[in-house]
């Protein structure tokens, strides 16, 4: 046999490539670490009870995120009320009831495609449908409905995957003892898929918390000095407040934005941790 004389060189190339991949991955992680650090370090001195408990203001020392936090809370609660039941039920229908065929497949593909549409397009739809056509004005309700449209595909896709992961032997076993389809779904399939569904729902909600563009589209005010009292009130939200502060030229407002980012990232990180926790318990 002819022995390859290039082996040393080939091994060097292999090692070099491995180190290259490691280095690039490390670089990516470092970049992102810098980002989080940079985005948060400016704001730490501003982070105190006064910041949480004050309304936005023209004077940076007096400004806070009270109305933004309240707005986000309202928005998320309403969004959850609309999007979660609709999304989960749609997923149950598509996975458990819908007759397999061209129509169901088309719906599934369309949902996947909808998940990739930019959020700002949803914002425009919300503006045209909810704000103008249904004349909900710039209310929390209009915001929550728009947000629901946006995260529905995400919830449906995640729930469908969780449902599909339930082994069909479980369904067959339940059918075999004479259960109806709804009994099977309610008593066996849904509980088994629950951790997956919850994880998907939480991730979708955290997406909704961070979204800015669609809220700007429907005209969530950037200066709101009151806490919304009902679904028809005007509102602002945390990411919008951050956007507003960032787009001002003064350095102090950038620091305020940074403090807002800390709060936002803190909330999101907590939600993520909960999701990971549920998923790990679910797989056990």
């Amino acid at each position, binding site marked *: *046999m*002819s*022995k*390859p004389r*290039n*082996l040393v060189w*080939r*091994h060097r190339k292999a090692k070099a490539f491995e180190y290259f991949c490691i280095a690039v991955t490390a670089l990516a992680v470092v970049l992102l670490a810098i980002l989080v650090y940079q985005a948060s370090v400016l704001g730490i001195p501003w982070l105190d009870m006064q910041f949480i408990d004050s309304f936005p203001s023209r004077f940076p020392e007096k400004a806070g995120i009270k109305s933004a936090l309240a707005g986000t809370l309202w928005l998320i609660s309403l969004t959850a009320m609309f999007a979660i039941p609709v999304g989960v039920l749609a997923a149950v229908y598509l996975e458990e009831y819908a007759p397999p065929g061209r129509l169901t497949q088309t719906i599934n593909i369309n949902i996947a495609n909808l998940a990739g549409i930019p959020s700002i397009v949803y914002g425009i739809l919300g503006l045209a449908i909810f704000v103008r056509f249904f004349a909900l004005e710039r209310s929390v309700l209009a915001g929550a409905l728009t947000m629901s449209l946006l995260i529905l595909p995400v919830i449906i896709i995640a729930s469908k995957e969780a449902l599909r992961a339930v082994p069909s032997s479980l369904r067959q076993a339940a059918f075999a003892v004479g259960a109806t389809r709804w009994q099977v779904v309610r008593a066996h399939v849904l509980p088994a898929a629950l951790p997956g569904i919850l994880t998907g729902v939480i991730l979708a909600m955290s997406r909704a918390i961070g979204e800015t563009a669609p809220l700007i589209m429907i005209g969530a005010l950037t200066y709101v000095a009151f806490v919304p009292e009902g679904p028809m009130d005007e509102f602002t939200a945390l990411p919008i407040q951050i956007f507003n502060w960032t787009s001002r030229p003064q350095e102090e407002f950038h620091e305020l934005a940074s403090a807002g980012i800390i709060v936002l990232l803190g909330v999101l990180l907590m939600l993520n941790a909960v999701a990971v926790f549920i998923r790990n318990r679910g797989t056990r």
Partner: protein
Amino acid sequence: MENRVILDIDDVCIRYGEDLAVRNVTLPIYENQITAIIGPSGCGKSTLLRSLNRMNDFIHGCSHTGGIALGDMDIYDPATDPVEIRLRIGMVFQRPNPFPKSIYRNIAWGPTINELKGDMDARVENALRRAALWDEVKDRLSDSALNLSGGQQQRLCIARALAMEPEVILMDEPCSALDPVSTARIEDLLFELKENFTIVIVTHNMQQAARVSQYTAFLETGKLIEFGETEDVFTNPKNERTEEYVTGRFG
């Protein structure tokens, strides 16, 4: 026995973490012969086979003691390059695993990356002829290998190993995913290949071992129970566990 020993397995133990999968196996592999390794599922026969060309290196937590020598090359010497070992010891796997490329490029892949000299077209044709596949595919060498049938794919994988002109070919239950007709074709092939190559074949099919091999090793729970000429092992076993196994009383 006048046959030359080409692979010398000496007191080999293989562990997965804490589990001892192969225990103190000592076994000679004779040149230009077919050696079958048989035994019940989980007896460590595949593990032993994969240790011969260091494919176990890729399995996390797998460790090895004892020596395996290929001629004057110590396979488990840290200074030995596993790539060089695999150039001399080829392998065919349980399920056909052709690359998602054309038939031609499947065969040419190994020689290309190893920059083997010579005419590539001739090398590909030669390998396919030896694997008894040439007549079936010569008009469609640029078709995807994935369009072949299972039996053809497995012969393609054999041809792919042959194109490297190794000294030894390891076969890990090469027929377990195939129908009886394809299996018979591969068994016929093995007879012809033994003229030029040394073959070690793992099989759970005792009839297959009896049909194709000259030597048989019987493993149980990682221990070598019996090794000898195939005829002796099957007709006149020395160990009563071997007898029970080859007569089909367990396994």
